[in-house]
């Protein structure tokens, strides 16, 4: 019984690290631009599809497919920023109006990406070629699929890379400065336009990594974005929207909880549980479990 619980927790950890990547994708744009990108889920979906395309149709090895996919999807993310976000940011609108318009514009982009994927790859679910042996490996008495171990390893690798990029490089410092105070950062010589593009590009890259990692576990289909996008957002809210550490903790917590529900209650209602958590959390602790509630200014 205890072994079983641990096994569920470990596979939850694997799924959770994918949610954490999506949550990071949400958090980056929120932190930097206070903009929630509703197309994040669909960018995640593109990650899945491009990985499958590179592996199945271009036939390049897996370790090469990852950087290629990330590059392509990041470019799409930057293009997205140039076309759908920047013109809105420039328009002189009131704050509340700007939010609503951004929501609708990003939803529109999401619908566009979804249907473009449906046209290119067809409406049916695509399976990922089996990469790893089906034989599960044994860790301290638990049986874990090899894929899950890889998923955790790759996700952690990219999270560490992101952390390093944000904390230790000049680009990261610029991005953080722009997120903290746009005007001052601009005065200090940060290229805001470039910083915005990079933020969206990074966010898309994280989404793409999530998409690549989910592909061997489940099928890729054009409408998968909504469900994973919502889960990623839930994870981001659990940890505190806009916080890097919060997104990771939130994602892993959500994955583990969901897997425990699937394993011990029923799999049909796991999504219901996840979305209920989102609503309950938004109600009682909208700042997340890790962040302090913000002081409201008049």
């Amino acid at each position: 019984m205890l072994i079983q619980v641990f096994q569920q927790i470990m596979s939850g950890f694997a799924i959770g690290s994918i949610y954490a990547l999506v949550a990071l994708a949400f958090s980056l744009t929120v932190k930097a631009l206070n903009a929630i990108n509703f197309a994040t889920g669909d960018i995640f979906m593109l990650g899945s599809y491009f990985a499958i395309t590179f592996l199945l149709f271009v036939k390049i090895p897996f370790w090469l497919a990852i950087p290629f996919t990330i590059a392509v999807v990041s470019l799409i993310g930057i293009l997205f920023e140039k076309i759908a976000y920047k013109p809105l940011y420039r328009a002189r609108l009131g704050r509340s109006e700007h939010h609503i318009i951004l929501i609708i514009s990003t939803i529109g982009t999401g619908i566009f990406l979804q249907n473009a994927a449906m046209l290119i790859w067809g409406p049916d679910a695509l399976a990922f070629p089996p990469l790893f042996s089906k034989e599960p490996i044994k860790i301290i008495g638990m049986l874990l699929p090899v894929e899950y171990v890889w998923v955790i390893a790759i996700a952690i690798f990219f999270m560490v890379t992101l952390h390093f990029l944000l904390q230790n490089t000049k680009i990261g410092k610029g991005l953080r400065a722009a997120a903290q105070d746009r005007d001052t950062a601009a005065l200090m010589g940060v290229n805001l336009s470039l910083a915005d593009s990079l933020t969206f590009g990074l966010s898309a890259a994280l989404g793409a990594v999530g998409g690549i990692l989910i592909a061997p576990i489940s099928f890729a289909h054009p409408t998968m974005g909504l469900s994973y996008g919502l889960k990623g957002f839930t994870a981001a809210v659990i940890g505190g929207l806009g916080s890097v550490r919060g997104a990771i903790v939130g994602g892993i917590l959500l994955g583990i909880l969901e897997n425990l529900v699937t394993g011990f209650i029923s799999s049909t209602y796991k999504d219901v549980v996840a979305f209920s958590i989102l609503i309950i959390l938004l109600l009682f602790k909208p700042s997340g479990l890790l962040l302090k509630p913000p002081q409201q200014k008049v």
Partner: protein
Amino acid sequence: MSFELFKKLSWVLILLFLVSLPYLRVNIYNLHVYTLICIYIIISIGLNIIFGHTGQISLGHAAFYAIGAYTSALLTAKLGFPFVLAFFCAGIVSLIIGLGVGAATLKLEGAYLAMATIGFGEIVRMILIHWERMSGGPAGISKIPDPSFLGWQLHSAQSKYYLILFVTIVAFICYRNLMISNYGKKFTAVKENILAAQAMGIDTTRTKVIAFGISTLYAGLGGSLYAHLNCYIAPDAFPISESITLLLIVVLGGMGNILGPILGSIILIEIKESLRMLRDYNMLIYGFGLMALMIFAPKGFSGINIFRIFKRVFGKKI
């Protein structure tokens, strides 16, 4: 001729046109589309109350639409309720759930509220798909009886059109009266400046919840009409994109514009119908259009007041 008289006369003309519509265009399919537009008008009036007038976004309105449709369908098909009773029950059930959801979620703002309402919409859709004994699962409920009214069975497309047109007109008049009443002013106050509204002694939370309740009442009533129009419903009919369509109707028609829901529904549903020819490219162009619209015309058709234009063009002489 005074302006007031002109206004009344044009309303009469519009009404005459709407009543004679089934005889002008006999095509059954077109008539069905017009009936659908009427239903969209009812639901988007509801959404305009909460989103356009009160300024609180809801991306879960398709869920209330679904709740109304399923309530009405279950009551008539399984329990044998008469249509009129089921119609009002659908509205009331939706209203009660809406008040609950509103009381819970309306503390939130902006994108957080959007996400919470999306979450609620998805929960409702999951329940409809998985709770097969109640909802019939993915196959939905078929054999919903035609609406009956004072002993008449309405099963022709024309009679359904008249019924739904009548409900739409009543719904619109109620909406207009609500908006020029005290409550309408309160809604606007909450939207414009919540702090100022509080300072004026308005209970803003209560106002928001009431606005949400009324808006879900409209959605439930519209859902009931939809169920009895098609005599068949399934969870597929109420996806999240339906909520987005409703939101778009309100934005297109102009947020907080009383004629907005009518304008928006006609424009958007006609656009969607004409895009249908493009088949697979349909939703692609729709999504792109949504984005382009927000960039080039973020305020929709708001501010367009037909009567004011007439007044400006013709002066006071007409």
